[in-house]
């Protein structure tokens, strides 16, 4: 085994796709927030959310094909990180609901928060599992 292999296994671009998905989610969030809470639904944000979801699914498919992979450690990190990020996303959702954000915008923001709360724990869990023995 080479020194380079010891540092990092050659793996499919799961991390890169995950970060790209996060970039799309946050950009969509900025677009929605920039227009104000009472604005109409913004199609660029909808497209970015769809791209974000597609990138996340692609990352998941690539990850599922990695052999061998430390799934036990992945889910160990994922479940706790998801709990933490659900609390964080829940706080922001609470603010949007309390302020009576219009239905379509609220749905958009909720989907963005769901994407956020799925992407970040997945990135954290993958970053740990990739360096673990099975």
């Amino acid at each position, binding site marked *: 085994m080479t020194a380079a292999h*010891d540092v990092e296994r050659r793996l499919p671009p799961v991390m890169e796709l995950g970060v790209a998905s996060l970039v799309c989610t946050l950009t969509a969030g900025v677009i929605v927030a920039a227009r104000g*809470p009472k604005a109409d639904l913004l199609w660029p944000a909808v497209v970015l959310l769809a791209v974000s979801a597609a990138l996340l699914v692609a990352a998941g498919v690539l990850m599922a094909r990695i052999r061998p992979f430390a799934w036990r450690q992945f889910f160990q990190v994922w479940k706790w990180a998801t709990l933490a990020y659900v609390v964080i996303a829940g706080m922001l959702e609470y603010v949007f609901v309390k302020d009576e954000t219009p239905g379509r915008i609220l749905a958009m923001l909720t989907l963005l928060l769901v994407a956020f709360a799925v992407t970040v724990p997945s*990135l954290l869990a993958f970053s740990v599992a990739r360096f673990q023995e099975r």
Partner: protein
Amino acid sequence: MTELARETRDMAPAQAAPVRPATLIPATIVPLQGLPIVAVVLVGLVVAIASNKLWALDFFHVVGGGLWTGIDLFVGFVVGPILGRLSIPARAEFSARFMPKMMLIMPTLVTVTLAAGWQLGLYEGFVNSGYHYHAWVVASYVVVAVMAIVALGVLEPANLAVLFELRKPEPNGERIAHLMSRFVWAAGVTGAMQVATLVIMTRLATA
């Protein structure tokens, strides 16, 4: 941490091996005794938002944001360079104890700052697109997004991977150095964004 990365990377594998902290590392990745404090802070935040009182919202936004900015700049530009001058076992031990606390503190501060900030923006009318300085508000969204990408997409995954590596019977020093090498440019980007935050927030507060 930057110096640790550079120095450990430059060492031969045989020399880089003893990175495991000399004393026992904490039993859990996240310090569980800190969770009640986080819960109290979040309950206070919910109460502040529910009551929609200007003072309470301002308190959470200013205190949370001030600590977030201060800690980011202090760790990136004061603690980091000092750490670089410590022995490698000392740095590893410091990191093993410091990073778990940061994994609890920083997400809490970010959540408090953003949630209270959005509600404060609604209260003051900053978030409405008709607000005179709305461009500054949008700039603050972009700054937060850039910091979130760096923190959540780069730094936090690396921190967590380092913490798990340090818990192994024989941590891979080269791997730790490789993971920490990304802290160099991340500290620079985060520092620049935090300075931009200070400029934007002081501008909005005096508008």
